[in-house]
């Protein structure tokens, strides 16, 4: 009796650990929407940190930390747009076009990851001018996608 129950427990742990990497799969649409909104908010906050640093003392550690947050969030967001998490599922500015033009949307998501990784690289160099240029590139990726796939408030 001991052994199987231990095995069941271990299996449950493994499933939980796996689910940790892709929470969206198991979560309700409302939870998924809430999670991706929280992630976008973290990205917005991190963008502000970089912008503030560029306006002030250009602290290398702060900029690098914020860039890493953006890159991590960019990776986390892709799986958080499963079918059934559009405007019909709850309060979200995500437009139905995300699901009808999925390849385009995924292209934006991929581009964001690439640009965010570049931002991490230049933020580590501490070169404020280069960070400024890459900040704009990341920002352009954000707004490029938002223009097409986010409701305008």
């Amino acid at each position, binding site marked *: 009796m001991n052994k199987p129950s231990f095995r069941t427990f271990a299996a449950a742990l493994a499933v939980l650990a796996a689910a940790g990497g892709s929470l969206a799969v198991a979560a309700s649409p409302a939870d998924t929407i809430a999670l991706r909104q929280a992630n*976008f*908010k973290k*990205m*917005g*906050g*991190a*963008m*502000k940190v970089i*912008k*503030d*640093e*560029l*306006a*002030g*003392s*250009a602290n290398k550690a702060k900029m690098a930390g914020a860039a890493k947050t953006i890159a991590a969030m960019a990776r986390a967001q892709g799986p958080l747009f499963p079918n059934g998490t559009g405007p019909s599922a709850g309060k979200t500015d995500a437009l139905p076009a995300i699901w009808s033009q999925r390849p385009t949307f995924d292209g934006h998501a991929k581009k964001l990851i690439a640009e965010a990784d570049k931002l991490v690289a230049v933020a580590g160099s501490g070169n*404020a*001018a280069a*960070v*400024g240029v890459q*900040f*704009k590139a990341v*920002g352009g990726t*954000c*707004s490029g996608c*938002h223009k097409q796939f986010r409701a305008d408030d």
Partner: protein
Amino acid sequence: MTEKVRVWDVPVRLFHWSLLGLFAFSWWSGENHEMEWHRQSGLLILALLLFRLFWGLAGSRTARFAHFLKGPRTVLAYARKAADEHATDGHNPLGGWSVAALLAVLLTLVVAGLFSVDVDGLESGPLADYISFDGGRTAAEIHEVAFNVALGLIGLHVCAIGFYQFLVGRDLVSPMITGRREREQGETLDDVRWSPVRALIGLVVILALVWAVSKGFHFNSAGDV
């Protein structure tokens, strides 16, 4: 004695019409995400409002707060029979408070704008780096509420002008353009007088201050974004 009397000085009139133009432009640029234009326009509005506050203390007779902000009894008495009242020397007792309310709301609007951050952290007012992202989002919400209140007050302002124009038969628009209105029978008002030197001094100080605000008080920033 001429039959026309000058009731609005040049700075008051310039202030009024520039404010109207810039408010419209700010509205348009905000709606169309032309944020660089929106910031510039907002800073100019800030300069205008600060100048109007200064002019409320240093301007001509009808520009001064002490001249047009009346106590509640006077305001009520005027409101009861506004249509029968004679033309006032400048703002009437009710309109004076309308001006004060507009100034207060527009100041709230532009100051909130200085601290506002957009949801993506991409666009922000020049002072947003002094507060957190959440603080900046709250400022953006205040900015929006103040804008709607301002629209309401402007609507009220236009209705009041329509009331005088069509129901009382008094033209309030032309005097705000030319500075002059018909002198009423037996009215012994002097033309308003103002000091260009004083206006210039105020303008220079205010423009310097607004320039510093536009830089976020950072005069040697690391990068330009």
